[in-house]
């Protein structure tokens, strides 16, 4: 059985004048145990809403979300927000931010510091555990966000366009950090991206979410070996996936300049 299963999800939002906008119409999807899945779709196709439904921030009108947890009690969910500044706690140190989920579950200060520091050391020597958030660059702040999402051994990891506020170079650095963290502790990931290359390169499976149909229209597979590298952006398999994504987006009316 898959770790995360969504079945028959429907969701509408109220529009002005009593009208309703249908976002999902009986959408179903599964995330495999150690599978990195990207979700690509035009604006307004409800990518963020879908993440929020999985995280039970938003309730679907109908349908079920099942997350098989390895922990006692409620499933642990890791989440990386696009707006890293708004989701960090600037009044705490880097270590306290990374270990915040542990603080919530009642772990002691020493334990939190130790876990945050060991995670931090895996990735970068530039960021010190006792630093303030305001002293970090945007990329470093988002790294703190990413590490926080990993620290509590989540059953599923949800990433909502995590790098779109960063410049190209930082974006790739972070993308490879995410891959590294994930390879060290594999778990189902649903990664929403606006950037086609990024979404394809990181993923085993690429879900194409149609705004018109309100469901997953197509699933692509990226068979390239791990770890993925920037050089693979020009591999035939990558380009084939990329082509399929672009054709899908064109079909959705994105390339007509409506975006």
């Amino acid at each position: 059985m898959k770790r995360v299963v969504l079945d028959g999800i429907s969701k509408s939002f109220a529009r002005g004048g009593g009208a309703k906008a249908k976002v999902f119409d009986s959408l179903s999807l599964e995330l495999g145990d150690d599978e990195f899945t990207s979700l690509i779709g035009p604006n307004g196709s409800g990518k963020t809403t879908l993440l929020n439904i999985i995280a039970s921030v938003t309730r679907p009108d109908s349908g079920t979300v099942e997350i098989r947890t390895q922990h006692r009690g409620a499933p642990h969910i890791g989440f990386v927000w696009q707006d890293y500044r708004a989701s960090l706690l600037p009044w705490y140190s880097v270590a306290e931010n990374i270990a915040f989920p542990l603080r919530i579950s009642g772990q002691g200060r020493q334990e939190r510091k130790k876990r945050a520091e060991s995670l931090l050391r895996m990735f970068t020597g530039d960021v010190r555990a006792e630093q303030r958030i305001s002293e970090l660059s945007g990329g470093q702040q988002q790294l703190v966000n990413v590490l926080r999402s990993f620290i509590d051994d989540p059953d599923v990891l949800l990433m909502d366009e995590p790098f779109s506020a960063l410049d190209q170079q930082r974006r790739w650095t972070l993308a490879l950090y995410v891959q590294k963290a994930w390879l060290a502790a594999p778990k189902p990931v649903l990664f929403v991206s606006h950037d086609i290359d990024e979404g394809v390169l990181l993923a085993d499976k690429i879900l194409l979410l149609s705004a018109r149909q309100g469901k997953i229209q197509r699933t692509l597979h990226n068979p390239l070996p791990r770890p993925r590298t920037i050089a693979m952006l020009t591999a035939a398999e990558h380009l084939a996936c990329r082509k399929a994504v672009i054709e899908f987006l064109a079909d959705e009316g994105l390339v007509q300049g409506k975006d």
Partner: protein
Amino acid sequence: MRPLIRYGLRLVGPALLLYLWQVAYDWNLLNRSLLPSPADTALRLWQLIYTGDIGPDLAATLVRMLAGFMSASVIGMVLGLVIGGVRPLYQALEFTIDFFRSLPVTTLYPLFVLFFGIGHASKIAMVFVASVFVVTLNSAYGVVNAGAVRTQMARLYGATATQRFRWITFYDALPQSLIGMRVALSYSLIVEIVAEMFMGSQVGLGQRVFEAYSRYAIDDLYAIILITGVMGYLLNRLFVLVERRLVDWGPR
């Protein structure tokens, strides 16, 4: 800019003012019985401080004012955090609090005298009322405008309402609460001085100003005004220092 030059530039304003004062006195531009010379004022100022004459008044004003201000800050912040955290409560009370914040507390002067008499309690109560609403409103406002993503984040990682409040909402609302307190600090000094003048008082800077005015002791009047001004200035500076210690994150 070099520090020396920067500090030097700061003295330009006071020096200019002093110069104009001297010129106005020398050329008799203003009635000399209304404007003493800077030298006479300085001498009186020095006497007031050196003899310790002004000490009890300074202390009395400071203590009463701070008693009112600090209790208003603590109670106002707690009230604001609670009101801001419970949305229906905020909607129910916002208008009322805004009304009392907008009502000049000096209008209530007779009521304070009737309820509390003319002693310390009455003045402290007046300072308290002048300050508490602006702190409450700003704290509540800070909570209402606290980052929604942060709260969502904490909720997602399983934080209880108490944890969210202690680790997120409190800090998120702190800068706005402090803005309220800074305004309240200015109100406090104004109201304390005015209360001393009108309620009458044994000691206090406001009382001394009024007393100097009644005796027509113009040197005293100017000297005490200067002392009060310096005290207000130092209080504000001190508050900014505390504020920077408390809110030591992010861009200011």
